[in-house]
């Protein structure tokens, strides 16, 4: 299969008639790691949720394609089966459904040939990935995210990503609330998928995680648009100078209006 391509072209979205994204354009290809950074409330999470198909967001303009197919015409489950994955900032707690049973159902749903994964194969793979992510095997039999700490939930998102092996993954603030050891484990998980068949969009408020998941491109998002793009050093510059620097820079160049 050809390397994946996620193309976001001039995307406009709204929630309850309030504009959130104002013409966002970005292309993520297999083999690339893109980071989107930006202050709170700028539309980063809305972008992630819209790409995955959350019904709360209304797309009012633009297009999104995954491998040339119209992503916006698909339901969330169809997007997942096309190889899109979103590691959520606030994963839901699902009572009564164990992580293992859920993952098996999800893997079976994503298998193209409609066959079920043999139980032993599934169990072996789950054990292997959990060990790799330094997770207590007991988590497999706990109810999905129920009573998990913030860090456990994030690790569980990465576990799901490694099991489902998506073509394009969006990681929404996967580093928030994690200590440095946990960030290293999460980064290890992301890096293990790196390759020509995998592209990632890492959404973050802080530069910290980018020390461990090295981005090929860094984009700064303000007011629902990408206002500046660059290489990894842009993240470091942003970290030193802060978002106010971007804002004043942009006001100076006339890219955004003074607030």
């Amino acid at each position, binding site marked *: 299969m050809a390397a994946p391509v996620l193309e976001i072209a001039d995307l406009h979205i709204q929630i309850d008639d309030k504009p959130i994204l104002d013409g966002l354009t970005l292309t993520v290809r297999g083999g690339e790691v893109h980071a989107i950074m930006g202050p709170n409330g700028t539309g980063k999470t809305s972008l992630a949720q819209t790409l*995955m*198909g*959350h*019904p709360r967001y209304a797309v009012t303009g633009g297009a999104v394609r995954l491998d040339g197919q119209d992503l916006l015409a698909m*339901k*969330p*489950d169809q*997007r*997942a*089966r096309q190889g899109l*994955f*979103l590691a*959520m900032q606030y*994963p*839901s*707690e*699902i*009572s*009564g*459904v164990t992580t293992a049973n*859920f993952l098996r*159902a*999800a893997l079976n*749903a*994503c298998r193209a040939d409609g066959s079920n994964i043999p139980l032993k194969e599934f169990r072996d793979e789950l054990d292997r990935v959990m060990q790799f992510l330094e997770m207590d095997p007991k988590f497999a039999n706990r*109810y999905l995210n129920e009573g998990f700490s913030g860090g456990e939930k994030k690790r569980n998102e990465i576990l*799901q990503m490694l099991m*489902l092996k998506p073509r394009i993954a969006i990681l929404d603030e996967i580093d928030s609330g994690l200590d440095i050891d946990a960030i290293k484990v999460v980064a290890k998980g992301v890096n293990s998928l790196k390759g020509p068949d995998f592209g990632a969009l890492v959404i973050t408020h802080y530069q910290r995680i980018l020390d461990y998941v090295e981005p090929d491109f860094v984009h700064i998002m303000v007011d629902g648009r990408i206002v500046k793009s660059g290489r990894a050093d842009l993240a470091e510059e942003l970290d030193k100078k802060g978002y106010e620097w971007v804002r004043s820079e942009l006001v100076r160049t006339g890219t955004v209006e003074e607030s």
Partner: protein
Amino acid sequence: MNSTAAISSQTELHALIRDRFGHEPDWSLSRRLRAATNWFALDWPRLERTPLQKRRLDAIAVYDQPPADGETQFINTGGLEMHLHNNVPVVRSIPEPWIQRGVIFQSLRDALDNSLVRQYLGSLLAEDSDKIAALNAALWQNGVFLYVPPGISETVEVVIQNYATSEVQALLSRNVVVVGAQSRVAITERWFNAGAAHKMLLAANTEIIVEHGAEVQYGAIQQCEKNAEAFIHRAASVAGDARLDWHIGEFGAGLIVSSHQSHLNQAGASTKSITVFFGSGQQHQDYTGKSVHHAPHTTSDMTARGVMKGKARSIFTGVTQIDKGARGSDGRQREQTLMLTDDARADAIPSLVIDEQDVYAAHAASAGPVDRTAIFYLTSRGLTEEEATRLIVHGFLAPVIDAISQSALRDEVWQAVERKIRE
């Protein structure tokens, strides 16, 4: 007397009862005649959230005798088992060793000479509370009498299966269960019928006497078709150190008005109840669970969990009553309902009626829609919305269904849930 449509007076109904039940012992016949008088005097049940006027119950030919659907076959299924078709016992099984140990398992009409039937029939459920109760008391067609003598410590497993064919207009049942001191019984009761264009009135009363130290598990699953308008009431008296567990699965019938009540009459009596219900389409379900603490150091624990979809409507009223003097008692209840559609509606109405200081009582109730964020989360991993909903319903019901200790019934409840999810 074949045509019963014309009955419009007490005299005519008395004549019908004499004709149909004249061979019964005097005490039974006179009870029926008394109830027939009440039938004309009383109103339909008044239920706060279940108005019955629109259901046109008076258009149902309640006097019609169901057609016989077979003759009794005495077979040995290895356990105690009775199948009633149109209230005619068509299968009856009671292994010889149980007979020798004094277990009695008969159709109720065959057991009218037993003094226990006379003592307990109508002892826990009123026959003059409303029109349905009076109708059932006047014209009950059959049911089951089970007597387990004291001191049987291995569990007596009992299956009671009730089925009605499409011709039936009214199925009127009575059951009496007496479990002697220190004995153990597990009952599984099933209700179903063949659907029909006309409505069927189902009225069933079950009275259970649990003697000192006995342990009874009473399981029931109701999967009637939507033409059934069902009124199923169960009441138990629980003696000292005895225990009664209710496991009730309610899935069928267009209208179901159902209750179970436990009277904890002596110290050490306890009851635990689990009700699982699932409404779909236009179903209307009105349940009441009642735990009544009459004596000190009694415990009750009531759990109800339901799922509503389509335009279904449910009410669960939980009542925990602790009388004055019932010191050291512990009564708990919790009700939760999950609604899968915007048009579904569920009310959980917990109430605690406490007349004694030195007790523990607690209730919790909730009814809410399925979490859309959770559905999004699950579908984002490739599960269809249907599959995601199924997982959430499973997760919601699993803690209570898996707590049903009667394993065959537990499996049937799961199957019924699966069927309702797909419906």
